[in-house]
């Protein structure tokens, strides 16, 4: 028994060592020893006017294109008029038209988009309680309001629960279940995304993927279910993850990735189109940020190996430019970790 | 005679400090054996080795024929242990502690013996041991041992904290109990007078070894102090005296008197002194009690 106890202690100490020592090294020594190698790419934005990705340099004091060209800050402001709009307005330098399109500060603000998805927000990367909120998308007053019920998906339906009494609302549950079933929705649900935050301009409810990997749009308008089936781009494209965007400009319904992690957009009229030319994004392993305007978007996808920048056209979603910046080196010591930046789980992993 | 305790070639060190090397002794059944030694000679170490709370660097202790480190737990029923300072569970009162121990010694537990002693304590049955005086605590610990009624008692400094009357009572009780029931007792004490009344045999320890193991009578009857006046004042004890193995701790007093201890007969001491050509006055011989004999054997320092 003494031997067994000592073996257990030995294992515990060994695990603590492979956990704590690399952690200490990675957190304190790496920035001293490899400080210049570990920084990611600076703020980078595609300029349609220069057809170049423009990066901040010198801690934001300078600007440089990935083409190698250096810009003055003022030049860069003018080349990124959709981003530095306030700056240009103040300097009286905002043009009336950009690439032939008439612009106003209001229009720019209205059509700019900003979206990010972090890997740890993917449902498989975090615990979910399984209760969701569905807002009324046509509220009586101007602002969106909190609902008085929450819903859960069951094996064969959707169930609304009154949050004040804790009791299931059988009528509403049946109404919504029937509406989904009528459109061919196959329970149980495979994946869903929605953003039941009332501090936004409008509500698109939820985008759903059913058990047969078909996509649906569900929202509540005037208390009634609105369900729309979204056709696949073609039968070979099997949706895996789906994202509600709710951009102020309403230029998209959402985004979608398929089994091969290819990224698609869902247009306002429910068309599914590939974004760029075969941009791959695994929402469970990478973070994605989209900053865009009425003409082009910059996608920044941070994977384990590289930071990828894609410029795509906001008009036809075609790929305009690509910039892949692999990490220079990996100075981090492998070791035991319990938490990761990519997910919310606490579990042992060695990397 | 059957040996209850056997220690064979014990060697122990605390760090680099040697306590003893190749120490061997045994305690026969039915004997009361006292372990005497000056501070630091390893009395408590020996008790700890015997009770299994210290692993010797080499050698082994056997009780009832079994190695104390690997002994069958049931055998501990027959070993009563009084640990240093008479420690007992402080959080119990005298009833609870009796109740607790009784369950471990079915068939041999003598509840009356315990309560007999406790009656003399004049403490309330509900009083916790932590609130008792040292002497009272010691009596609880001893009472529990007597209730356990084991075949072998190991007592570490049993007289600590006991007042003279109770000490005497306990010594007499213990002696009668051991002799009438053939129990074996192994004990240490700081108060050598107690041992004199109690023990059959003694082991006298010196630093690193056993000076002697013998029946008490052997010391009482055969060990004497000799003293005589030397004609000339000497500053140091003569070399030839120090070299005589049969003379223990020869020393000069301030008045120039020579004092030594020996198991030899008076005539033999006289003869050896003359053989050393050491002129001296008339040789006197004193009988010794155990404490004096202990000092004579081990020296004052």
């Amino acid at each position: 028994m003494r031997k067994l106890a000592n073996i257990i202690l030995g294992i515990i100490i060994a695990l603590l060592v492979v956990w704590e020592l690399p952690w200490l090294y990675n957190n304190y020594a790496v920035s001293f020893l490899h400080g210049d190698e570990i920084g990611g790419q600076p703020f980078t934005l595609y300029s349609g006017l220069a057809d170049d990705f423009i990066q901040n340099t010198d801690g934001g004091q300078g600007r440089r294109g990935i083409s190698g060209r250096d810009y003055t800050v003022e030049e860069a402001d003018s080349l990124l008029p959709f981003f530095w709009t306030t700056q240009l307005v103040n300097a009286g330098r905002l043009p009336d038209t950009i690439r032939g399109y008439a612009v106003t500060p209001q229009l720019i603000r209205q059509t700019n988009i900003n979206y990010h998805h972090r890997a740890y927000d993917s449902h498989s990367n975090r615990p979910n309680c399984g209760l969701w909120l569905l807002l009324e998308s046509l509220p009586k007053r101007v602002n969106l309001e909190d609902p008085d019920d929450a819903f859960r998906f069951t094996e064969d339906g959707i169930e609304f629960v009154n949050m004040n009494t804790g009791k299931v609302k059988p009528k509403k549950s049946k109404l919504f279940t029937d509406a989904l079933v009528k459109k061919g929705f196959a329970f149980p649900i495979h994946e869903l995304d929605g953003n039941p935050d009332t501090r936004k301009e409008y509500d698109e409810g939820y985008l759903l993927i059913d058990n047969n990997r078909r996509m649906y749009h569900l929202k509540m308008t005037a208390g009634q279910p609105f369900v729309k089936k979204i056709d696949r781009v073609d039968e070979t494209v099997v949706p895996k993850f789906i994202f509600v965007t709710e951009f102020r400009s309403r230029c998209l319904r959402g985004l979608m990735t398929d089994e091969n992690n290819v990224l698609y957009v869902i247009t306002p009229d429910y068309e599914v189109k590939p974004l760029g030319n075969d941009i791959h994004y695994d929402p469970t392993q990478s973070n994605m940020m989209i900053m865009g305007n009425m003409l082009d978007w910059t996608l920044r996808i941070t994977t384990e190996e590289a930071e990828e920048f894609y410029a795509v056209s906001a008009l036809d979603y075609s790929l305009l430019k690509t910039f892949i910046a692999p990490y220079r080196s990996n100075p981090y010591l492998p070791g035991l970790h319990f938490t990761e930046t990519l997910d919310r789980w606490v579990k042992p992993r060695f990397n | 005679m059957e040996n209850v305790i056997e220690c064979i070639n014990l060697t122990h060190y605390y760090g680099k400090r040697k306590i003893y090397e190749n120490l061997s002794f045994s305690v026969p059944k039915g004997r009361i054996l006292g372990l005497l030694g000056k501070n630091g000679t390893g009395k408590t170490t020996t008790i700890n080795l015997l009770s299994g709370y210290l692993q010797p660097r080499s050698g082994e202790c056997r009780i009832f024929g079994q190695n104390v480190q690997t002994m069958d737990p049931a055998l501990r029923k027959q070993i009563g242990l009084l640990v240093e300072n008479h420690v007992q569970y402080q959080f119990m009162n005298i009833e609870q502690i009796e109740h607790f121990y009784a369950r471990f010694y079915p068939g041999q537990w003598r509840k009356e013996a315990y309560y007999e002693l406790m009656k003399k304590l004049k403490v309330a049955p509900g009083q916790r041991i932590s609130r008792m005086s040292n002497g009272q605590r010691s009596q609880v610990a001893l009472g529990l041992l007597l209730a356990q009624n084991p075949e072998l008692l190991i007592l570490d400094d049993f007289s600590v904290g006991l007042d003279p009357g109770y000490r005497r009572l306990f010594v007499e009780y213990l002696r009668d109990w051991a002799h009438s029931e053939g129990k074996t007792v192994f004990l240490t004490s700081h108060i050598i007078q107690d041992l004199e009344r109690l023990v059959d045999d003694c082991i006298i320890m010196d630093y690193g070894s056993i000076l002697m193991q013998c029946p008490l009578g052997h010391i009482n009857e055969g060990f004497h102090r000799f003293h005589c006046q030397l004609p000339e004042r000497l500053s140091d004890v003569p070399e030839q005296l120090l070299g005589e193995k049969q003379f223990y701790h020869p020393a000069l007093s301030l008045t120039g008197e020579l004092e030594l201890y020996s198991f030899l007969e008076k005539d033999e001491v006289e003869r050896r002194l003359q053989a050393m050509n050491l002129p001296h006055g008339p040789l006197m011989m004193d009988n010794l009690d155990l404490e004096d004999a202990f000092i004579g054997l081990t020296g004052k320092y």
Partner: protein
Amino acid sequence: MFYKEWIKTRWALLLILIVTCGYVGYELLNFLRAIGAMGGAHIWIAMIMKDEPMFVRHLQFIPLMAGVALACVQFFPEMYHKCLKLTLHLPCSHLRMMFEMLGFGLASLLVCFGLNYLILWLGMRPSLAPELYGKMLLVALPWYLAGLAAYLLSAWIILEGSWARRIFNLVVMFLCLKVFYLSSFPGAYVPFLPCLIVFVLACILLPWISIDRFKKGIE
């Protein structure tokens, strides 16, 4: 053995029970007050939208402290003047005695923690969906497991005789317990819970190392 442990720890156990249940009651009271003041729907929404240990947050270190406190009450008296010698001299297998002592402590903590959970469950059940109170009960689970681990690791430290080794053990205990507090994201520990339970069970053997060293007289 249980009798001795009971006599030794009964008042402390009562105190631990009162304090832990008191904290749970306090959290529950806050919860019920919030429901009363803002309405159930508001609380539901907050709980669905926020990934925080709402209404159990203050319980985080309570089980841990309960575990350490019980270990202190149970094992410091054993080490006082080396009382453990008395225990180990009892005519029972040492291993069995250790398991009985630790078993008593673990069982007491489990009763106490179980009662905490029962109060939380009974208090939250009428006003929350199972998903929501489940979320709160789950977030507290690693903390309660930490309480059990802290108890066993503290016993390991207290029963150790050498100060240098005690400090080493203390560092090991600190790091081990850190694992239970890496995230307060509700449910984050779910895939890891079986491992943590195995760890707690494995810790039952650690005090044996200290007892074994005690028997060898290592100080």
